[in-house]
């Protein structure tokens, strides 16, 4: 045992276990044990448990703190949450890869069958430019309509007794559910058109080749512009195709010519000025 006594700071530190070198001395020295006991009593008194705060205070403080939180775009949080999920799910990567492969295979099958049927019903051969545009939009992740259209059947507008109904149904299909309809409008149309807007005049990127009756319509009316809309419909018992033609050299606000053409001989059943 050291003959020298620790100073009061050392005894206080000894009480906290922060001065183990004095353990032996204090244990054998009554003169040091007394201040150690006093300081320990003080420490115990100070360390008495604090009454729990009211829950309302806690809620208020947390709410205020959350309000003061810097605004996050949410992506970081999502990424962090996803990262933590990933780390706890080692099977996730192979599973995701398998699902992606299955989807790619399935879409390939559907695409090839759609193109086959399209070629049998198309009167003219497929222009390479249109296909290239379709692929470009698809590759660039251009949106649901353009990507999904080749594998989706054209929407059916039902019975169209008159021109007003034709116009109204097209507007409804475009403005109401273009994105899920897979109705053959361009991606831009699908995204922006509402019943009060006009059809845009660019060629529909999902139109692969010409549409049924398109050529006959052009023969009759050479001023018709590119096809911007296509659907099926009927008039009574007569099945038909609905084609929306932009005007040549038209602007985004030019009206579209909507034609309902009989499927059997492409005769014109209805005509309406589009939106």
């Amino acid at each position, binding site marked *: 045992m050291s003959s020298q006594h620790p100073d009061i700071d050392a005894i*206080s530190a000894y009480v906290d276990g922060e001065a183990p070198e004095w353990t032996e001395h204090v244990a054998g020295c009554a003169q040091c044990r007394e201040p150690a006991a006093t300081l320990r009593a003080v420490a115990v008194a*100070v360390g008495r448990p604090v009454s729990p705060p009211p829950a309302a205070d806690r809620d208020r403080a947390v709410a205020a703190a959350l309000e003061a939180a*810097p605004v996050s775009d949410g992506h970081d949080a999502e990424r962090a*949450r996803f990262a933590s999920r990933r780390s706890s799910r080692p099977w996730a990567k192979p599973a995701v890869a398998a699902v992606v492969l299955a989807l790619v295979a399935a879409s390939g099958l559907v695409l090839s069958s759609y193109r086959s049927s399209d070629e049998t019903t198309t009167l003219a051969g497929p222009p390479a430019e249109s296909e290239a545009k379709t692929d470009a939009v698809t590759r660039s992740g251009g949106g649901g309509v353009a990507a999904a259209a080749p594998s989706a059947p054209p929407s059916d507008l039902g019975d169209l007794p008159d021109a007003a109904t034709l116009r109204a149904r097209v507007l409804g299909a475009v403005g109401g559910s273009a994105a899920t309809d897979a109705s053959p409008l361009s991606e831009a149309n699908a995204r922006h058109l509402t019943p009060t807007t006009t059809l845009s005049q660019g060629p529909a990127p999902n139109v692969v080749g010409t549409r049924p009756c398109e050529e006959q319509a052009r023969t009759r009316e050479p001023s018709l512009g590119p096809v911007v809309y296509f659907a099926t419909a009927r008039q009574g018992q007569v099945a038909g195709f609905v084609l929306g033609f932009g005007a040549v050299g038209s602007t985004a606000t030019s009206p579209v010519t909507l034609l309902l053409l009989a499927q059997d001989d492409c005769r014109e059943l209805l005509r309406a000025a589009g939106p």
Partner: protein
Amino acid sequence: MQAAKSGDRGALDTLLRRHYDRLYALCRRMAGDDADAADACQEALMAIVRGLAGFDGRAAFGTWAYRVTTNSCLDELRRRRRRPDPGLPEGSAELPSPLDHAESSTTRVDLDRALQSLPADYRAAVVLRDVCGLSYDEIAQALDIPAGTVRSRISRGRTALAPSLAPGRNPNPSSERPTST
């Protein structure tokens, strides 16, 4: 923690609630009354949220949070010194708090009074040690002072508290005992 740092409000909420009681205890002992403690703790949580992006993880989050909270308490005490003291209604010191389950109102008032008699820097060191259970190194980090200074502040603080909290006992009975160096 990472989610909270990147702004996930759910994670932030969980983190703050998990630490609230401990931080409140620090505020309560530093401030000396419930209302100031609640204010200081709320300020502390806001400071934690604002500063979380800058928390580099070198210290434990708890230590860092104690540091932020201690600073919030010291700010609150400075503000309190600037505003006029309305004084306590007569007899209020003896009124038991319905929330006070952990100690009698008398010992609580004694302890509060004793702690308030200490300089704030000493009080912070003592409270971080005896209430929060931090090591001297962690207190040094939290208060941004050398560990030797922590040691002397705790010792002097306890010595000053002894007459109130350990009456009849003398922490320094030997006239030969050296004081701190």
